[in-house]
């Protein structure tokens, strides 16, 4: 009996090590095969869905574009400061991500407001202050409403739409989207669930350790 238990334990440990070493995160979104002719031979490559160029303003009034997250890993989510439903728990959980990586310049958090009319730069700054968000690792971004909604639905694949029947007037999903250094979607986590957010923190570490060859496989 003891031998069997020991054997199972060894197998489990072995597997645990193996999966940790070789773990790569999947790449989400649409993919398009592209055939190029290189040295007379045709080669097929895969083009993954990426986040297109964007330009928003952060809580300090600074302009933030896709250039600011070039070669960075980042987490994106959509919120609004007067949101009564899922936002507080999302922020509570995002604070864990923030605290885990705030000293790491390679990891950023981008929270786009879906209520830019109300959430001016001043409102965003005071909201950030109340959550003790300092420095430049977590940006609260404000931009044009249509652009934000389009970015959410078409690019980050998060559903957002106005709905006068719900509290706060906007219905939206509380997903945290993980984006890699090449602007590709690498994960989506339910921001209202602490255990999913812990997985996100672990996955960011995996992504940081990932090399280009591994990702290409």
């Amino acid at each position, binding site marked *: 009996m003891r031998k069997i238990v020991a054997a199972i334990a060894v197998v489990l440990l072995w597997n645990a090590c193996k999966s940790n070493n070789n773990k790569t995160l999947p790449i989400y979104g649409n993919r398009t095969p592209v055939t190029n002719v290189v040295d007379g031979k045709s080669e097929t490559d895969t083009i993954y869905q990426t986040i297109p160029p964007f330009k928003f303003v952060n809580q300090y009034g600074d302009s933030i574009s896709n250039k600011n997250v070039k070669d960075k890993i980042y987490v994106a989510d959509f919120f609004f400061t007067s949101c*009564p439903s899922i936002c*507080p728990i999302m922020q509570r959980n995002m604070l864990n991500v923030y605290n885990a990586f705030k000293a790491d310049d390679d990891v950023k958090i981008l929270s786009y407001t879906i209520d830019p009319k109300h959430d001016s730069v001043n409102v965003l700054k005071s909201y950030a202050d109340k959550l003790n968000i300092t420095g430049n690792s977590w940006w609260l971004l404000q931009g044009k409403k249509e652009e934000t909604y389009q970015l959410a639905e078409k690019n980050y694949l998060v559903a957002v739409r106005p709905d006068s029947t719900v509290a706060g007037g906007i219905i939206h999903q509380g997903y945290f989207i993980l984006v890699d250094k090449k602007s590709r979607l690498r994960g989506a986590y339910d921001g*209202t669930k602490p255990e999913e957010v812990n997985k996100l923190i672990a996955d960011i570490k995996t992504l940081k350790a990932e090399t280009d060859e591994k990702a290409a496989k």
Partner: protein
Amino acid sequence: MKLKIIGGLGVLLFILIITGMFTSCQSDEQIEFQRYYSSGSLVYQTHCQNCHGAHGEGLLALIPPLTDSAYLRANKNVLACFVKYGTKGKITIQNKSFEGTMPPNNLSPVEIANVLTYVTNSFGNKLGTINNQQVASDLGKCE
């Protein structure tokens, strides 16, 4: 080995009997309190916990905690109005100032009584039962 298991079971049985004796001797008030409190914990989880937290800790300077017993005691008769109609403007909790809006909650008087009993007797608070009649009367006087 066997003796230990039997001994352990004996102790467990003893504890069960003693608890049983105590619960059967509970007064009507205690039973009422238990009923309000346990239903209130469910109402809290669905309607309050997202913002105020699993331990009533609030969220930094954004959402006030529910751990200020002095405040709760002083405002015991308006808590039902806060829950039902929401709050707006400045509020000082544990010497910290909070500003913002708490949305109204579409809860019945009995659900409000449940959740208030839960909150005012959790997180270090101990204010006793806030019952249905109390809430109904408080709601009649909301500003």
